């Protein structure tokens, strides 16, 4: 340890996501599981010799998908946080593999707001902030439309005021 003082931790970012994000994630999981389960189920209904195996794997898959759909959004909603200060964008994601990303305002190149079809239904949007690094993009998923628009506008305003080509 170089400093020789106590422990250092990253504090959680200040803001939570919109509560509707949990519902959005849940729907995504359900849709993701529904497709292969349906295929397996149909195959099981028509192919008599392999029926037991097909239906069993369909059931297993459905159970796993349901479990994910119930648990993961709960956990994610607790861990996913974001914060924008005057100097940086700070995001925490992930439950099993936790990830903190920091991008300084002075290095931001683009600010994108995306609303997927499913996100539209839940009134949510994703803000993606990219820097000149191919691996440095910061995504904030599951923001309410209004919050996302305001955030993008604020980020654009701050970054425009910063000179340089951000490399």
């Amino acid at each position: 340890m170089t400093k020789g003082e106590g422990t250092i931790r990253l504090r959680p970012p200040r803001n939570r996501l919109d509560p509707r994000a949990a519902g959005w994630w849940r729907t995504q999981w359900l849709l993701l599981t529904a497709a292969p389960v349906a295929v397996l189920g149909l195959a099981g209904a028509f192919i008599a010799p392999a029926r037991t195996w097909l239906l069993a794997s369909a059931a297993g898959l459905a159970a796993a998908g349901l479990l994910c759909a119930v648990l993961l959004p709960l956990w994610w909603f607790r861990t996913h946080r974001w914060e924008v200060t005057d100097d940086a964008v700070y995001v925490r994601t992930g439950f099993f593999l936790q990830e903190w990303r920091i991008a300084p305002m002075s290095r931001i190149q683009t600010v994108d707001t995306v609303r997927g079809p499913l996100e539209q239904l839940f009134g949510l949007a994703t803000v993606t902030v990219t820097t000149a690094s191919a691996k440095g993009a910061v995504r904030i998923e599951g923001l309410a439309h209004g919050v996302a628009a305001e955030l993008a506008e604020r980020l654009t305003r701050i970054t425009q005021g910063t000179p340089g080509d951000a490399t």
Partner: protein
Amino acid sequence: MSTAAAEDPGWLRIHPRTVLVTALVTAGVAAGAAVPAVVALSGRFGYPLAIGWALAGAVLLIGGAAAGDYVRWRRTRYRVGAGQFDLRTGLLLAKRRSLARERIRSVDLTAHPLLRVLGLVTVRIGTGEHTGGESTLELDPVSRAEGERLRRELLDRTAVEAPGTHREGELAALDPRWIRYAPVSFVAPMLGGAAVGGVLQISEWAGAQGEVIAWVTDRFRDTPLLWTITALAVVALAAGIVGALGLWVEMWWNYRLEREPGGTLRVRRGLFTSRSLSVEERRLRGVDLVEPLGVRLFGAARVDAITTGLAKDEQAQGADHDTLLPVVPRPLADTIAAEVLREPAAPTGAPLTAHPRSARGRRLRRALAAVLLPVLAMALLGALLTPVLLWTALVCAVVFLPLAVLSAVDAYRSLGHTVSGDYLVTRSGSLRRSTAALQRTGVIGWTVKQSRFQRRAGLLSVTATTAAGGGAYTAYDTDASEGLAFAAEAVPGLMEPFLERS
């Protein structure tokens, strides 16, 4: 020489000999295609007619290619303006592209043997934009003198002399003794395998694969199997080593690393295909000292540049494109790295902070799992089906377990990071150990990752993202507190507001 275009002053043409080059290259291709075609056709038409047809086809092909290239030559113009570089191309669709001159970051000159004989070079001008594919302009070809002129003119900046006493001119030149590291690179076994594959493939084309295999089996009729395999492996490896030596000579002949006035680093090398790579020092964000395992065992290393805006197109010869120094003894690599960075001592040679013991445990567990899971699966199948698999599992376990443990321990010992002067240094890897020294001002963000397992072991991985080189340099499995302190120290102020100290 390039002639000024009639209509517009300042617009230049590429070299007219391009038509000749295209015709010759096409002739080569046509000759390659004609031989099998004649063989195939002679069966039906007899030789004279077959040769006639092949000749006619070749003439048509060569004529067409030359005509096409002539039109391309007519339609291609370029101009070095005060503020930008313009290129007009296009056969049917006129295409006009401009590059702002201050955004030009590299000018590469390459010449394959044919171009060299004709005194021509291909110029590739790069802006190094990551977005989109059209980040490089190519002039194919211009005369060598014109290429040199373009390179000097396009990279000529009002020289901002950096402080420090570092010399200009030649920083490193080829030492033929460096060739001793060529056989221990990964290229040798790969080329050996390729040689065996090539022999089999060609014999198959000739319809003689069976005979080749029979001939080889014949040679080894009285030898035990193990010796046969060993002998064949040795032969393949010998072929690979010869190939690696040849490749090394082709790639690194005439190698010179120079610093030119105006702050540009220039690498020149190549026996048949001569290559010239120029990197502006203001785009240089650091260096990467790379030690592949074989090379590292002999105490050697190579130096790559970490720079924004190296031409990243598919034609560039991939891995070696950003190499500043071939594999040389480690102390020399450190010296040259320091020279390139204008530092008194190389940050890549700085003593590094070791990572906690638990990082070694993680590597050992991962290595054991990677070996034992397949072995257990094999043993299970063996117990159910056939005892042969049981023996295979046993042999695999005996051979691969020590290797896995060794490589895990080595990977742990490679881990390290530190802040040294203006640079942050991270090191990792066993098969390819990489010590990256990245300018602290070149860091444009942080990513910290921690899995559940890492959390339990009190570890995390800290990644500095950058616009240059690989885009991200990671210190894997640092102590949780110490890694964050390292990041906070490397770039003051960026991570600090988000830290809690207790």
